[in-house]
């Protein structure tokens, strides 16, 4: 397999170099289980991503994202079940709607909307979760710290 950037876990940086902090909200049924599967399969992903468990992405109040960014996160991932497969039928569709709107608001506030990422990861997609985390970490590293945006 060819090495691509998304599978490469970066080496630990020297202590004084800035490390991003990324918060990921994962739905219990699909994405959290998928992330567990990545762990069982020992697939590496970036340690700057911290997972918060919710039952469903429909629970995602947009203020959580704002609050996370305010409290020090440099990026936020929201990950749920694939459309049509939500354990609670439609929660992920509502999350999708809210994220669309939220992105526009973030832009108005001068925050790069790339700092918010919405993905669908199913319970058997450990590899996809790892790729997502790594890609996001790479993206945030290139965007720099949140403070830089404001």
């Amino acid at each position, binding site marked *: 397999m060819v090495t691509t950037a998304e599978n490469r*876990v970066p*080496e*630990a940086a020297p*202590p004084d170099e800035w*490390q991003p*902090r990324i*918060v990921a909200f994962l739905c219990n*049924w*699909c994405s*959290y*289980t998928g*992330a*567990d599967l*990545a*762990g*069982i399969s*020992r*697939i*590496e*992903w970036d*340690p*700057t991503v*911290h*997972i*918060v*468990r*919710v*039952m*469903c992405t*429909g*629970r*995602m*109040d*947009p*203020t*959580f994202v704002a*609050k*996370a960014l305010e*409290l*020090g*996160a440099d990026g936020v991932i929201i990950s749920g079940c694939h459309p*049509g*497969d939500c*354990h*609670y*039928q*439609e*929660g992920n569709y*509502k999350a999708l709607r*809210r994220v669309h709107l939220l992105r526009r608001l973030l832009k108005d506030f001068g925050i790069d909307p790339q700092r918010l990422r919405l993905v669908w990861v*199913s*319970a*058997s*997609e450990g590899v996809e979760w*790892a790729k997502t985390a790594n890609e996001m970490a790479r993206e945030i590293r290139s965007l720099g710290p949140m403070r830089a945006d404001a």
Partner: protein
Amino acid sequence: MADNGSPRIGVYVCHCGFNIAATVDVAAVREVAEGRPDVVVARDYQFMCSNAGQDLIKQDIEELGVNRVVVAACSPLMHEPTFRGAAEAAGLNPYLVQIANIREQCAWVHHDRGPATTKATALVNGAVARVALHEPLKAMRANVTPATLVVGGGIAGLQAALDITTAGNEVYLVERRSTIGGKMARFDKTFPTLDCAACILTPKMVGADRQPNLHMMTLSEVESVEGFVGNFEVKVRQHARYVTADCTSCSDCVAVCPVSVPDPFNELLVGRTAIHKAFPQAIPSTYVIDRQGRSPCMEACPIHQNAAGYVSLVAAGRYAEAAKLIRRRNPLPFICGRVCYAACEEACSRSKVDEPIAIRGLKRFVMDWEREHEPDPQPDLPAQRRPEKVAVIGSGPSGLTCAFDLAQEGYGVTIFEKHDKLGGMLAVGLPGYRCPRPILERDLDYIRKLGVDMKTGQELGKTFSLDDLLSDAPGFGFDAVFLAIGAHRGLPLGIPGEDAEGVVSGVDYLRTINLGLPQTTGKRVAIVGGGNTALDAARTARREHAEVTVLYRRTRSEMPAEEDEFADAVAEGVRFDYLTAPIEVLVRDGRVSGLRCVRMELGEPDASGRPRPVVLPGSEHDRPFDTVIVSISQSPDRDWYGNGSPSAKPALAFTKWNTLDVDPQSLATPVAGVFAGGDVVLGPATVVESMGQGRRGAEAIHKFLSGMALEGFTSHMPPAQPGLGFEERPYLHSPTYSKMERLPRAEMPKRSVAERLTDYGEVDLGFTEEEAKREALRCLHCGACVECRSCEAACPPKAVDLEMQDEITTLEVGQILVATGYELFDSSQITQYGYGRYDNVVTGLEFERMLNSTGPTAGQVLLKNGKPPRAVGIVHCVGSRDEKYNVYCSRTCCMAALKFAHLVKERTEADVYEFYIDMRAFGKGYEEFYQRVLREGTTMIRGKVAEVVPALGQNGSDPHLLIRCEDTLIGKFREIPVDMVVLCSALEPPKDAADIARVFSLSRSPDGFFLERHPKLDPVGTTTDGVYVAGCSQGPKDIPDTVAQAQAAAARILTLISRGEVTIPPIRAVVNEALCGGCKTCIGLCPYRAIHFDSEAEVARVNEALCQGCGTCVAACPASAITGAGFTDAQILAELAGILAPVG
């Protein structure tokens, strides 16, 4: 043990042996945790999940007053219940526990100690901050309905159903096909014991049939599932079987069914009748009729004649039955067999293969046969005589049909006909060479036999009026009237000179000839117009020995005349001048002497969609003619209305085309009791369309006279969906049809042209019996059942019910087992193996059917040409273990291949070759079976087959196949000649697996099969509580493993039933009514409709039994009035703050 008051948090960091400790510095994490606010104790320990570990927690709760617990360990999906249980055992509410996942989501996925430890510390911080805000929650208990739903009647579903019902509980077994038994019912012998599959399966099937609390629902599918574990509400659709439970399986119906369609049970290798039982030991043993909607021919016909039915009966040589079938819906079969424009032929599915069936010709054949063999057919007399009387004005097709239908209902019907010959347009409009008088008489006679009184010489507006009909005067006194006076007035051209002698309208001309009235056709006749009437007039004029020229103002492609008619007209010497129109009739001595014409060219399309003809300036020219027949259109006569029309209001209404204005559904005029149909309403229409209107009129009059509302009509419906034809018919996509031979359509034999012009004898001669049968055999039976009702007649217990409808049942069950099995990979995708292209390349299932004694070859191994094979090649891994198709191994094929090898050796003299990559003989007795097959002399070649190619042998006349592979054990390329190739194709999930998953809330693994909760520890559970999977729906497996899983699932189901109740986690939404503003935003968002609005209190309320805890409403509430118990805003934000707090 206080769990109120200020939080006293205990933090426990697990080493998990080296799993966590090797990467995360657990001691450091513990140290940092110790210093966090509200933390009274922090420990680290080797294995927190062990008894000793749990005791640590319990002790701290009891002795240190810990009232909040954080465990930093493996995933909560693993051990959250364990630690909740430990807390509960020590008297602490189990929901005051929070897990931080520092194993699956930390230690196992990061390799640098520093960042991993930092992250673990952050996660623990988050958990600590969160748990401080946890409140004690109480779990709900719900009852478990003891009934169970099992989806799928294969061996998995069957076994589970038997186990559950034997334990004394109810099971609903829902199976999509007409019989239970699944794929196993199709096998011949099973490995490794070579048990006959049916022998071990059928006792279970019969057992299921007899089990008192096992409710079997075959031909059924689950449409929706609502509810939660212990309390599911399931909607099941039972498709109509069309045979009731009175069926005794005598199979008399099969003998009379004229249809043969490819049999899916036998992998489409052989045909079966539409009414059938899937296989002899099918359970339920009731027969079933295969109906794929209505045939397109029946759909398209305005009177819904059963074309497919009588065509099938002709093919079977059952002409008397065909005639009866035709007469059931058609009072004018002889006429239609000659002149109908055949919408059925236009819709015929056969046109997708080659050409449509000559349905009209076949109908004519049947009726001619009846005339010869059954000269006096009797109609079914009505069941009851009704007192009401109905008058039908006009004896054309619509009037006759209306009269016929009403007479069959038992009404007294009188037809009033103006001319002295009955038949309307059929008598006065159709020339004799298309529709001879004796033919029409036969149809009229049949209608008379029903007691219909037909009066000639009675003209509406002259000898009687509409008022008379409705009055009580003797000879009248009718309760309803159907006006069917047709459209007999030819439209004039509107050019000067049109009133000269020798200019006549087409309809008038034809009427004169048909009624035998005196007339003179000249020597040079011009026909103006391009429709069927124009051509009828043209060909009639030819028979009157004239030179005939048709002048048409557009071109051939815009002419509305039928193709057949046009061809006949040309053959008979009619000349056609296109793009020509007359502008003046030239008159000499009061008689026509010619036409002044102009030439036209085609311009933009007009209202009819055809290009508008535009006059070419300066193109005037004169043509000599002595007779001009104007045949551009007809309209109904309106003169009669002036004389004695009903004086009461409301009166009849007319449109601007002089047709009667009626209600389009009921054909009712504004006058009560007076209906109208046919050409008088439609304008000039075809025979069968008018008949359809007559039928609708009869239905409307019957409703009117019975006092019913004039709605809900079932006769003369337009086709349900235009083009419901080829694409919708499943059989037409089978390989059988794609390789079908192209056969020409039967050509109607005709009289020679020279002969034709001598008289008015029929031009078409009709098919011979041989021609008719051959043509009828081309029918594809695209709708399967043709509704001939032969089975209905032949069934002794009268069990056939073609009016049966689908039924939707709602079931209440506590748990659901999904055992929907597998489908076979489509081997034609691997084109290099030649499946679907070469004869004698078969799939495993096809081979099973061949080996099975009830299959297409009665258990013999035979090639397509009927001979036994000299050599057979069995190919492993077709579509499995292949990145291009399915990556997984299908597990059963190696053993099935060995079984095939054994059976071929047993039943034939053939050499057997097996082409494998690995030999997977992993089960009990499997390796021994492999040894046995090796001893029998099958040649094993280790090499995946690269391609199968056809060969012709040394002298070019011995067609067989060559299998090419590398024999990897000797490292050489080999080409093995064989007669037959058996492909062991992959097992795949069913094509609609995604839809099934959605209905039951199942996840799927990457290979598409349903996802189990844990691959090792929970192979039959799913992430949806109360829903289980078993058998091949979870992944490919053989029968022993399938039965084991089925019994495992049954055990799980019985566990919950015996407990009788289930605990529902208290993760739920609660509305704070004080804050709720009544905006109702939340109501529509809930997918479970768990929130309702109390309009008195003007607040929203959550039904805690229905709420599943997704939190959508919590996030949506603008007033933050809804709390998500266990996942409150405050808790989540605290967790965020804890994670993101600055390090160090």
